């Protein structure tokens, strides 16, 4: 090979190695940090394709906080509440400060680790800063089961004229 081709070969090899490392790293990082979204029903009965998360898996879950289910530990900030869409409910455990807009009957999204079949240990609980907001993921999942869940007129009052 003449020197010029050698140089080119080197360049091409360096590029291939560089790109494949980058892609590899990215896929690895993605694999570690991609969290699937479930609704409480899907968590209990499995997704349409039958897949269920295993204990210890990181996931996101969204639904409505069941009325009267929020209970607090009297010594610490540990709080437990039930989350449901249209089917069975699951329990969320969270040690920390709930967002300002968290309240019973409100749609929320929690991110955490599955502790046992119906309990999730959340490290983040999100509620939107908007009264009428329902997380799109929740609204969509609820539409799928043909029973769209909506906020009642009472809940909407005050935010619309």
């Amino acid at each position: 090979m003449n020197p010029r081709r050698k140089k080119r070969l080197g360049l091409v090899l360096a590029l291939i190695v560089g790109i494949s490392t980058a892609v590899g790293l990215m896929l690895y990082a993605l694999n570690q940090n991609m969290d699937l979204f479930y609704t409480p029903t899907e968590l209990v009965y499995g997704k349409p394709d039958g897949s269920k998360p295993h204990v210890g898996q990181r996931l996101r879950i969204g639904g409505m906080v069941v009325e009267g289910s929020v209970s607090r530990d009297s010594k610490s900030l540990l709080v437990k509440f039930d989350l449901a869409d249209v089917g069975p409910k699951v329990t969320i455990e969270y040690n920390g400060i709930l967002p300002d807009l968290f309240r019973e009957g409100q749609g929320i999204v929690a991110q955490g680790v599955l502790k046992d079949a119906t309990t999730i240990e959340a490290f983040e609980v999100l509620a939107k800063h908007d009264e009428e907001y329902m997380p799109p993921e929740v609204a969509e999942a609820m539409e799928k089961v043909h029973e769209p869940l909506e906020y009642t007129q009472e809940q909407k009052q005050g935010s619309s004229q």
Partner: protein
Amino acid sequence: MIAEIGHFALIISLGFAVLLSVLPLYGASQNNPTLMNFARPLSWGMFLLLGLSFCILLWAFYTNDFTLTYVATNSNSLLPWYYRLTAVWGAHEGSLLLWVLIQAAWTVAVATFSRGMPQESVARVLAVMGMITVGFLLFIIMTSNPFLRTLPFFPIDGRDLNPLLQDPGLIIHPPMLYMGYVGFSVAFSFAIASLMTGRLDTAWARWSRPWTTAAWLFLTLGISLGSWWAYYELGWGGWWFWDPVENASFMPWLAGTALMHSLAVTEKRGTFKAWTVLLAISAFSLSLLGTFLVRSGILVSVHAFASDPARGMFILGFLVFVIGGSLLLFALKSASVRVRGNFELFSRENALLANNILLVAALVVVLVGTLLPLVHKQLGLGSVSIGAPFFNMLFTWLMVPFAFLLGIGPLIRWKRDNLSSLMKPMLISGVASLALAGVAVILLAEWFTGLAFLGWVMALWIVFMHGFELYQRATHRHSFAVGVKKLQRSHWAMMLAHVGLAVTVIGIAMVQNYSIERDVRLAPGEHFQIQGYDFYFKGLRDKDGPNYDGYVADFEITLDGNYVNTLHAEKRFYSTAKSMMTEAAIDRGVTRDLYIALGERLDDGDAWAVRIYYKPFVRWIWLGSLFMAFGALVAISDKRYRFRKNKSDSTAAKEA
């Protein structure tokens, strides 16, 4: 009646914009100076009418004209007057009007400060900017008109501005950000106008440079303002969340940074032309993509703009038109502009190329992280989210080669250089930064963390190598004291911006590794200790504002028995918007922030959930970005960019 004038002005300005995008371009192709001369007055007409329209909307907000739907949904008569005015860009319609006004302002700035440019180029550039304005004006008039009436049944009072936006940080954050976003349309227009003629010469690069730098300056300020606002206002104490909307502003920033560096090569060495054009197209396209992502509501984000599928479709169409059209033009014309660069492997050209590759790689990481959930969902694979660790990890690894190159880049000569001539400074800086980084971590932190150490090494490496470069450049012909005064402004600009990055890196490394965040249960009279600081919950009192009811919790902080500060954390309930707000209390310091935010009142009625954070070096993150922005300002003021007739090219940014 007044509102209708605003609406009318909007429509006439669309007419001006249409004329602006057609007449000068036709004139340029026919070589007709009369038609080309229309470009400047048309730009002014468009700008003045939009200004009128914007002022009318301001007036409607100021006078609480709730017969306008937009005012009624985003303002309230109890709102203080300054928030009533800033409420104009508090939601979708008004912020778009601000956007298009800024677009027109940049157009006028180009029209004013381009006297040294050939008439034909000015005509083409202004025409392209006119086309972009047409797109946005159509968008406003067709899908998001702020002047719609609620008549005949108008509400007595408005629904109030989102309480999160009732904050001084939000007065300037959106305009700054838009100045940046829209500013890239100037670089874009220059690139497109040059592509049309097929003449991509160094003059083109020289004209584009100050505009690109100005846009980058505003974007840098806008992003860091947003980060600072999120830190103190959202009450979580975070400074960056990798939220889709943040990413949407970060992507044009990365592309813009790459563009600035690539433009330098194009201007000085006449190579990288096609690449520079591609970057100019990307920077603006990514700004548009950002708008699309935010406005269409297809991504889940904390920035809850009302979403409307029609709007999303319009922007998507516009996006396809702009990106598709410009890439098509690029494909047709770029073959003729490609030049074989005459430089060797170890040269400044290649160092800057590597800088560009790394920046684009970072851009791809953000793009993938932002869009993958969308693609995943559309493919029917279920809804996913990509967590912050993904971005953090990849950015850490990308930052290492980037910082290394940043250190040596300015020392490498154009065209060809010898690695051996750099060996000595590299060795000395390397050893010094390793040693000092170790010292810094041991002195400033309680325990040792590899990543914090890495951060310090990278930052110190950048600083030392730049110090060496400064010394070498200054002592090239003169003694240091004389030489340092003879350095050009653009050189100081580079120094400032690069050292600014180092400062930001230190801030990030310290905050990410040594923050202490505790959510605790505290009742008045109780103490809590963190990092030697004692937080004493003194008591709770009522404090009501014009449009909210609030509580204030007083905390007394002592360090080893010495009084530090008393902080007042607030909790507010906005009655019209029916929402709770947390106002964090922060004791600011150079090496640490103490951060207190009230959570909720706990069941027994006396105790509160309280966030108590210790945030080391968090201010450095924004300090560094101020350095970068100041560097950009110095760069624009460099003499080289002033045209003969007009001395004040640099003031374009200020007036725009």
